[in-house]
């Protein structure tokens, strides 16, 4: 039962610094942090005050909207600092890890015998619920709604993304357990998409799920693209989304009773001297992960990919959902006549004296320069070439900017996440912040329409 999905619109941005398929086991670092901002829309209520000793899997805080949704500590140790910002907003909860890791025991479970309610409660108790995200709005799933389907994208098409076939090798048992658990959470199907040319994907043998083979340029791996092709979201419908690396954590929890947020992380980008894979725990400090590998001169360290990752710097922490760290050069320099001379070393979708169309296989070392200043929307018709959904991207962006909820709804705002507008933002001649505009628009809708 597999269906092929092929898209034509999109853009593969080829960068230097692809991770070599070697995994180094890193020692557990000492400092970890959980950032509530990783869980967009969640207002934290602190459970573990400063000084509390926690085990791995013990809750640090819960969501203000629903106290069943717990957010666990990824390691055992002591809560040393709760960093607050303006209006006492919690920015980071820092944990100093102990050398000997202790795991809170949630008990082994036989997934096949569990009911829907039991699975849900187990995920709540063990702090695994935040791994389940929902569309619309791209936030942690609201457990009171029934999803019409659950989607897992096991093909990461973003620039330099970690190769799931490699990072998930040997995790078949965990994945199967987690997928079986997911099938209990929905009346509908659990859809899993793998790359069409993948031979090793552990998902090919999974039972109880609907397998799809996808091919085409980025953003084919974005789950919104797949949802739109498989079972588009209509007004009032909800789908849930889980990433493969989080499935492994859920699976391990079900099989062993331990919450183990360790994952294989790809170190990518031109500023790593040896781009490769390492093991790391969610919330780990970047300096621990990148030690001895990072070329520290005017670099930018990003948790996630270059399109929708977050700039964290060397002293920042790995994002809760991320399985990739990217380091690229900062572009804070002027370029003489950079706006009119022919360009060979940058990516462009036009041919306006930009020559990336000559050599589509070439890998580029792009920096963070904006290549121009912010302008009003002028050029039309370019976004559509990299935007595979049946949505008018510029019209939706403008609707978000002037906050017309009816129009946003009509134009398909329920079907999208900010990451879907990463490519249009990348090619935008007017250098508009598309992902931010979409995020603010979705927040407004969530506030007004629920």
């Amino acid at each position, binding site marked *: 039962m597999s269906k092929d999905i092929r898209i034509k619109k999109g853009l593969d941005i080829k960068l230097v610094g692809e991770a070599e398929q070697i995994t180094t086991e890193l020692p557990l670092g000492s400092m970890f942090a959980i950032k509530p901002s990783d869980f967009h829309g969640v207002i934290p209520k602190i459970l573990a005050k400063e000084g509390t000793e926690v085990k791995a899997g013990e809750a640090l805080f819960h969501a203000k909207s629903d106290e069943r949704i717990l957010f666990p500590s990824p390691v055992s140790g002591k809560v040393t600092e709760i960093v607050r910002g303006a209006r006492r907003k919690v920015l980071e909860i820092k944990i100093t890890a102990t050398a000997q890791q202790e795991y809170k025991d949630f008990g082994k479970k036989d997934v096949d015998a569990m009911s829907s309610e039991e699975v849900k409660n187990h995920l709540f108790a063990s702090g695994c619920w935040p791994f389940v995200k929902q569309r619309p709005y791209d936030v942690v799933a609201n457990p009171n709604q029934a999803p019409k389907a659950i989607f897992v994208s096991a093909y990461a098409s973003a620039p330099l993304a970690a190769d799931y076939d490699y990072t998930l090798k040997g995790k078949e048992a965990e994945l199967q357990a987690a997928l079986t658990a997911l099938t209990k959470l929905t009346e509908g199907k659990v859809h899993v998409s793998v790359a069409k040319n993948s031979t090793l994907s552990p998902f090919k043998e999974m039972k109880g799920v609907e397998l799809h083979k996808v091919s085409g340029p980025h953003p084919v791996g974005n789950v919104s693209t797949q949802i739109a092709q498989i079972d588009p979201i209509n007004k*009032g419908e909800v789908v849930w989304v889980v990433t493969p690396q989080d499935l492994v954590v859920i699976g391990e929890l079900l099989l062993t009773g331990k919450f183990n947020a360790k994952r294989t992380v790809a170190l990518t980008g031109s500023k790593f001297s040896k781009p490769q894979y390492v093991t790391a725990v969610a919330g780990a400090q970047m300096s621990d992960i990148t030690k001895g590998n990072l070329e520290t001169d005017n670099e930018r360290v990003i948790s996630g990919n270059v399109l*929708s990752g977050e700039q964290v710097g060397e002293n920042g922490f790995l994002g809760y959902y991320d399985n990739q760290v990217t380091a690229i050069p900062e572009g804070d320099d*002027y370029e003489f006549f950079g*706006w009119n001379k022919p*360009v060979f070393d940058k990516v462009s979708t036009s041919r306006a004296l930009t020559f990336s169309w000559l050599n589509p296989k070439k890998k580029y070392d792009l920096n963070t320069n*904006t290549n121009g200043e912010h302008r009003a929307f002028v050029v039309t018709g370019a976004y559509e070439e990299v935007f595979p959904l049946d949505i008018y991207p510029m*019209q939706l962006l403008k609707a978000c900017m002037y906050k017309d909820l009816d129009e946003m709804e009509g134009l398909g705002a329920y079907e999208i996440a900010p990451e879907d507008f990463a490519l249009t933002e990348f090619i935008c001649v007017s*250098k508009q912040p598309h*992902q931010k505009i979409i995020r603010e628009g979705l927040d407004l809708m969530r506030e007004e329409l629920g």
Partner: protein
Amino acid sequence: MGLKQNLHNLKEKYKGTKMAPLFNGFHTFLYLPNETTHGGTHIKAADDLKRTMNIVIMALVPCLLFGMFNAGYQHYAAINGFTEGMSFFSGDFWNLDNLLVGAAKILPLVIVSYVVGLAIEFVFCIIKGHEIEEGYLVTGMLVPLIVPIDLPLWMLAVAVAFGVVIGKEVFGGTGMNILNPALTIRAFLFFAYPTWMSGDKVWVEGARELAGSADAISGETVLGSLAQNAAPNFSVSDMFFGFIPGSIGETSTLLILLGGLFLIFTKIGSWRIMLSAVIGALVMGFIFNQVVDLGWIGETSKFYGLMSLDFWKHLLVGGFAFGAVYMATDPVSASQTNKGKWIYGFLIGFISIMIRVFNPAYPEGVMLAILLMNVFAPTIDHYVVQGNVKRRLKRAKVKTA
């Protein structure tokens, strides 16, 4: 290195002041700014608005140069007689005498257009405190190319001021305007000073001053002759190469075609609009040809001359080619959806030829057709986008039914 550092220090000094946009406007011409991405994507594509606009200007430069030579050529030809069957590279056309006549007239027009227009843009940017947008770079180049050669500079200055303020800035500046600013300027000139914009005395340099004297010269455009049911004395190759009287930059269909292909190749100009405009014009011209063939219009009718013109020749004469390639494709005032662009372009072509044939006072329709469709572009887009919205609603209904 020294210059770069000095300019950087100056930029920091002006930061936050009223003059910052002005300084940055010039600074960014020399250097691509040192801005880095914050939030959102960490990398950006190579194109910015300056590059996009620059490509359009590059596509216009051949038309401008040709216009200069043609101005001189028309002037001398009106006095000494035309060369028959010139090839495109003929020395009778490409010579210094011709260039000097043209350059002396045209360069001041270009300078006035840019100085007045950019000055107004700067003032508005400083008042509003936003960066100087590049929109006027193209407009300022288009304007001198679509006016008659003998237009007094003060008229151009007044028209540019009107066009930039009323056509663009009152709507919020670049990206917000409804009408194409260059055509707004031309329309203002046309309605405010009609005697300078039409007739048989404005298209050739010096024709107006010599009128009534013994040396009087005249230069009627092809359309002008046709409107009077007179056969134009230009061959098809003259029209295609552009050795005919007309607005400064609009005569050479060959160079406009090359410019259009360049814009399409660079993906800056919309091929949908250009192609559909041509199709629209051909369809309308063909319909008129049929009307003549059926005998509904006699040779005595005042529409006979233009209606009987072979339908494909409409593309070669007047400002149609220039309008379809450089004016209709302005992304801000055109339709913004791909489907909408087909409709928008087709109607421009269709209505251009219709107005051209039926306009009693002035036998050219492309300016008015584009302005009219500019007004309707948002409506076209609205219905195209509603189609998408309806499809989405239908999908939801099928699901629940």
